[in-house]
């Protein structure tokens, strides 16, 4: 990490504050301030160092940093780094207020980017691989996912350094990059989801048997078999998984539908379809 000349902290101290954020940001999460308590608690060593000899500024900083805050925790590393850089350069009321407005301005967009990249895309890609392997009794997938999570943890140091070293100017330079990254990540996510629908959604259609009466010559019963799965596959492999996922997608767009209701609906539908014999276990 590159430390500015008039910094009030050593590299080691800054890393400690970084680690404080990683550890404390969400353990005190509550509906009223969300990560606000975690942020305030993280900033205590900073507040003590910068404003320890100025009770007025200390009081101001404590109040400002106890406000509502919520973002994706890894993206929060950047914000904490920026905040420290801003406040230690100013050491006055204006610095605290600037830091406060940077926090407020960035937490929303950063949460959007972070949730997409670290939450949805990573969860979809690594989660699908881990889940499909696990259902076959294979632990390799979950090990890969865990390694990814460890890598993310290490990457958070880099994010903090980025925020601290670049300070406010990062906001403008980062925006183009971040949008490109989010867009690219969603392309990866879309591709993997497309494949997963085909390989992981199981909808095994039954073979229907129909009696055509008895053969007048031999007296044997004539049975006509309709292998529904063969018919469906002839149109397109994984036809029903694709159609049903589309149906779920559509249903989720309805105001009265949510994911938990949809799960219950699918369980009920599976039981009904099993009972009437459309699908077989």
């Amino acid at each position, binding site marked *: 990490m590159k430390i500015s000349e008039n910094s009030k902290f050593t590299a080691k101290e800054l890393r400690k504050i970084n680690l404080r954020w990683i550890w404390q940001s969400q353990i005190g999460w509550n509906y009223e301030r969300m990560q606000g308590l975690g942020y305030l608690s993280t900033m205590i060593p900073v507040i003590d160092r910068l404003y320890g000899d100025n009770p007025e500024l200390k009081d101001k900083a404590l109040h400002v940093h106890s406000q509502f805050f919520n973002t994706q925790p890894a993206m929060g590393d950047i914000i904490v780094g920026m905040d420290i850089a801003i406040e230690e350069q100013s050491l006055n009321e204006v610095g605290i207020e600037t830091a406060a407005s940077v926090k407020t301005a960035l937490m929303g967009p950063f949460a959007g980017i972070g949730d997409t990249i670290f939450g949805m895309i990573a969860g979809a890609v690594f989660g699908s691989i881990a889940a499909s392997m696990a*259902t076959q009794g294979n632990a390799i997938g979950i090990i890969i996912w865990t390694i990814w999570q460890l890598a993310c943890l290490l990457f958070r140091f880099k994010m903090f350094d980025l925020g601290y070293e670049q300070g406010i100017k990062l906001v403008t330079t980062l925006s183009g990059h971040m949008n490109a990254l989010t867009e690219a990540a969603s392309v990866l996510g879309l591709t993997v989801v497309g494949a997963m629908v085909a390989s992981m959604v199981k909808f095994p259609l039954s073979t229907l048997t129909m009696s055509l009466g008895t053969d007048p010559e031999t007296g044997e019963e004539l049975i006509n078999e309709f292998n529904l799965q063969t018919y469906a596959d002839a149109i397109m492999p994984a036809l029903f998984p694709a159609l049903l996922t589309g149906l*779920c997608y559509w249903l989720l767009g309805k105001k009265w539908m949510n994911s938990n209701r949809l799960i219950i609906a699918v369980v009920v539908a599976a039981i009904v379809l099993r009972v009437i014999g459309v699908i077989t276990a």
Partner: protein
Amino acid sequence: MSLSFFQILIISLWAFWGIIDGLSWNIGMNSCILATLFTGIVVGNAEYGLIVGGTLQMTQLGVGTYGGASVLNITSSGMIATALGASTGADPIAFASSIGIALAALFVQLDILARFSNTAFQHIADKYVESGNTKGINLMNHLGIIPWGLSRGLPVFFFLLAGQELIDTLMGFFPQWLMDGFKLAGGMLPMVGFAILLRYLPVTKKPQYVILGFVLAAYLGVPTLGVALIGLVAALLVFQNAIAGHPAAAAATSGGDDYED
């Protein structure tokens, strides 16, 4: 075979600490499959844990607690389903998609309760802000560990301690067609996870990538990791194009090179 007290305790402790890890370091203890694998190892049937965890994980791919929303707690319910199911010999997929899903939905309430309980510590911390007591603020933040941990540890402990007979009785009532239905539901439920993900992803703007992935898997039978790599190629192309067409971002790239020196 019933669980020993030590087994119950160690599984409950993982559940307690798992959520704390998920909130902080996030090295995976709170991920459903790792937790059920651990539970499986403790009860002597790792494969059972993997299948239960995998089945439940499929319903929640990429689903997270964005913005503090509560989601199905498949980690706690998966640990319970693994520990109790492995000893009763129930079909893991059917067991996960019946008991596993039902308990996961029930435990959402405990997540809400924990997030709500911490508001009390927030209020005490607010008083410490007035008096400038930084040690007190720090303590209040850490006290949040208790509601968070208990919201996962307690239900796991309770169900493992008392749940064995309860679940035995329950399973005795389930006829074969119902268990078959649950097993089939286990195979269908991943589509809910995918549909949720597609709701978050720009599927209407870029449907071609969903089709690409689908064709690779359905027609060509490319394994998941292979599809992910092809998806990565597409992602890199999109990224490079976006950077090239974005002057500000391009400037940032060259600036970034300087900063690396």
